[in-house]
């Protein structure tokens, strides 16, 4: 029966090529536009560290003074060095890391290569395990290296290739702002999007190329990059004890119970600081996991969300257009339907036949729409924004495109098909 309906659909299309083409193109445009924006949204709001995003938590405290306190307000996004250091020493979490962004000049020891700046991360030893950084050679440093401010560095594969033309460069040395550092690890290509652990820079930018112990970065006075907020004037904002927030701290907690316990630890710490007079505000701590953090920081650009709505509205217009055209098409065939009904086809059979016809249009529109979405994403990738190069179709989105177009064309076909199968055979046969 199904193949017979397909054949009927084919005949019907050939009778009205222009109208059929119009419907297919309309669906294709609607689906193409929607899938382009959905894909961008899907890529940008993806879980940056699947499987672990509910075990990693960012620590927030409110160390500022009473002036400017907004009741019920949020604590600052970052910690002071002093607080981060104290919480790291307490070590109540399963794993913990403190860090800040930075950038530093690399002086290549290779002919014809000028010094250049790279973005780096000054952090502590557990960074690599906590955030599942893949290595091609060597490994990260140990806790002792943090304590002794060891002159060690982990570099990204791209930097190793640029500097040495090779990947396995463990044991060689890297000259950074006049200091020799020993390379102990090379990370494989790693680009969590969004760059959740530090959202002070473009959240979809390429990751860092250089990792070294936080203590080492302080010894070498390496530059700091990212947000810095001081609530009082400070001659040296990067000094220990300065009234400035510029450190991110993440903890790994394996169960909700551990998270609740850690939250209590933070409150207790905050209360202690209040008692000594260092904190002035009432305790205001937060412990957000990766997903909560990304949504709190509203990482996905609002333009992208707005575009998704525009595309959905566009799809809706295309669908209404298709409903109108299908209605036209089916009612124009009242006589044919009357004959089929008179020859014994049930209403249900007519309904099914017309829906099959609608979904064939949907499939055709979907395939064309896929092409348009591919073109649309190509256009997005040509844009100069940082997230642009992430925008490409993956398998789930490919399937979703086809499903969207078939479902939407069938929804569009429901009303016309229902109206079509209401045709009374007697009237149609009599009048002609």
């Amino acid at each position, binding site marked *: 029966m199904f193949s017979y309906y397909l054949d009927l659909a084919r005949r019907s299309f050939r009778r009205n090529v222009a109208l059929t083409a*119009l419907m297919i193109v*309309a669906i294709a445009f609607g689906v193409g536009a929607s899938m382009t924006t959905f894909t961008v949204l899907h890529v940008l709001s993806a879980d940056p560290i699947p499987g672990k995003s509910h075990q990693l938590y960012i620590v927030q405290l409110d160390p500022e003074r009473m002036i400017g306190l907004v009741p019920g307000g949020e604590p600052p996004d970052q910690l002071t060095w002093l607080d981060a250091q104290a919480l790291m020493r307490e070590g109540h979490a399963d794993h913990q890391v403190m860090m800040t962004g930075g950038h530093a000049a690399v002086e290549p020891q290779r002919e014809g290569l000028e*010094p250049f700046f790279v973005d780096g991360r000054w952090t502590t030893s557990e960074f690599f395990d906590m955030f599942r950084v893949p290595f091609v050679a060597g490994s990260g440093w140990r806790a002792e290296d943090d304590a002794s401010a060891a002159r060690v560095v982990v570099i990204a594969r791209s930097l190793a290739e640029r500097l040495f033309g090779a990947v396995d460069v463990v044991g060689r040395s890297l000259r950074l702002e006049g200091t020799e550092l020993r390379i102990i690890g090379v990370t494989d290509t790693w680009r969590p999007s969004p760059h959740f652990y530090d959202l002070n820079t473009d959240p979809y930018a390429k990751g860092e190329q250089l990792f070294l112990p936080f203590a080492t970065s302080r010894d070498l*006075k390496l530059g700091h990059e990212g947000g810095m907020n001081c609530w009082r004037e400070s001659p040296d904002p990067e000094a220990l004890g300065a009234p400035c927030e510029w450190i991110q701290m993440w903890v790994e907690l394996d169960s909700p119970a551990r998270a609740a316990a850690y939250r209590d630890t933070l409150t207790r710490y905050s209360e202690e600081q209040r008692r000594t007079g260092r904190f002035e505000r009432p305790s205001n701590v937060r412990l957000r996991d990766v997903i909560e953090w990304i949504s709190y920081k509203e990482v996905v650009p609002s333009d992208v969300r*707005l575009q998704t709505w525009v595309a959905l509205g566009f799809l809706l*217009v295309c669908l209404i257009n298709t409903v109108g*055209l299908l*209605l036209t098409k089916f009612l124009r065939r009242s006589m044919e339907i009357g004959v089929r009904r008179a020859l014994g086809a049930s209403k249900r059979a007519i309904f099914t036949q017309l829906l099959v016809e609608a979904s064939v249009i949907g499939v055709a529109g979907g395939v064309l729409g896929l092409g348009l979405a591919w073109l649309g994403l190509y256009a997005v990738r040509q844009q*100069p924004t940082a997230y642009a190069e992430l925008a490409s179709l993956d398998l789930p989105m490919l399937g979703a495109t086809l499903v969207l177009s078939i479902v939407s064309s069938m929804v569009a076909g429901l009303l016309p098909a229902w109206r079509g199968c209401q045709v009374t055979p007697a009237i149609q046969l009599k009048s*002609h």
Partner: protein
Amino acid sequence: MQFFAILSTLRRHRTAAALIVFEIALSCAIVCNAIFLIGDRLSRMDLPTGVAEPELVRIQLTGIGRKADAAAVTVQDLAALRALPGVKSVVSTNMVPFGGGSWDTTISTLPDDPDPQVRSALYMGGPGMLETLGVHVIAGRGFLPDEYADFHALGTAQAKLPSIILSRALAERLFPGKSALGQAVYVWSKDPQTVVGVVDFLTHPDPIQHGDRAAYSLVLPMNLSYADGGTYLMRVEPERRAEVLAAVDTTLHKVEPSRVIVRRDMFTDMRKDYFKDDRAAYLLGFGVSIVLLIITALGVVGLTSFWVQQRRRQIGIRRALGATRGDILRYFQLENFILVTMGTVIGMALAYAINLWLMQKYHVTRLPAEFLPIGAALLWGLGQIAVLGPAVRASLISPAIATRSV
């Protein structure tokens, strides 16, 4: 007469008529909002800066390691750059409009204000800063040669910053209704700065993110080394900008080679880069609107063709009873006009509803009322163009058809 005839016909084709009205309404609502957003972005791309844009060239550079002689090297750098042909003036500064990143400060009329209310962009630069930027001093004067302080000496006893220049908007905010000239303000320290001049307009480097205070800027007379500010701003004859940019690297490396020139841009390109997201959004909105209107028009063509086909006999009968071709043509044109009018009335209400929702969610401003007639006129025109083909075909139906059975 025809009007009521059309209404009764439409009543008989309620579903199809409702669909086309709804489609037009949605198109109208979306296109109105899209045009509005596009206009919003377009006007944003014209945001003024107050500086001599076509003449400015920016160099961003940084030293490797901590340099003790940065101040001396900067003096040599500036002299070398100034000697390049086509260069009118050069200054070492901390930031430029659209340069990415900004230095901000609080400013108050009280010493040691515990809770200062006004924040401003903080421009610093050596002699020639105002001339290089090309800002216009509208009251008071520029800085005198002995008013410049060294950035590195700040915080020490001998560093005094006696004077300051404000943008007009900031001056009016701090001293509403009176002249700011000669008044004392406090930027960093307990020591006051005297307002010696007011410039007409100088934008915040990142005006989009600081919409509420985009016009609040102040300038401090400060000698910065390249290691402090990292930016050399040059005012150049517009046609020699490319030539000057090409010579920058060798010129600076001749002075002191161990430095990295991070960027060298013309200001006009920085503006383009700053508004790249707006340009993308604008192109997308424009594209969506055009395709949407085309699809709607084609939908009208399709449905009207169907109606013409369906009513061939009636049209034949009307023609046989004396209706002219013009009558038939006008019948379909009027029918389309009625449908589009209904669609746009609903569409305008919908446009407002969508706009209200966008205002809540995406900080969009209110849709000005004049956008609604623009959208309506657009759809009326489009509807009439779309209906013309099928209507002409209808008017060509021969009266003889009334006598034939199909």
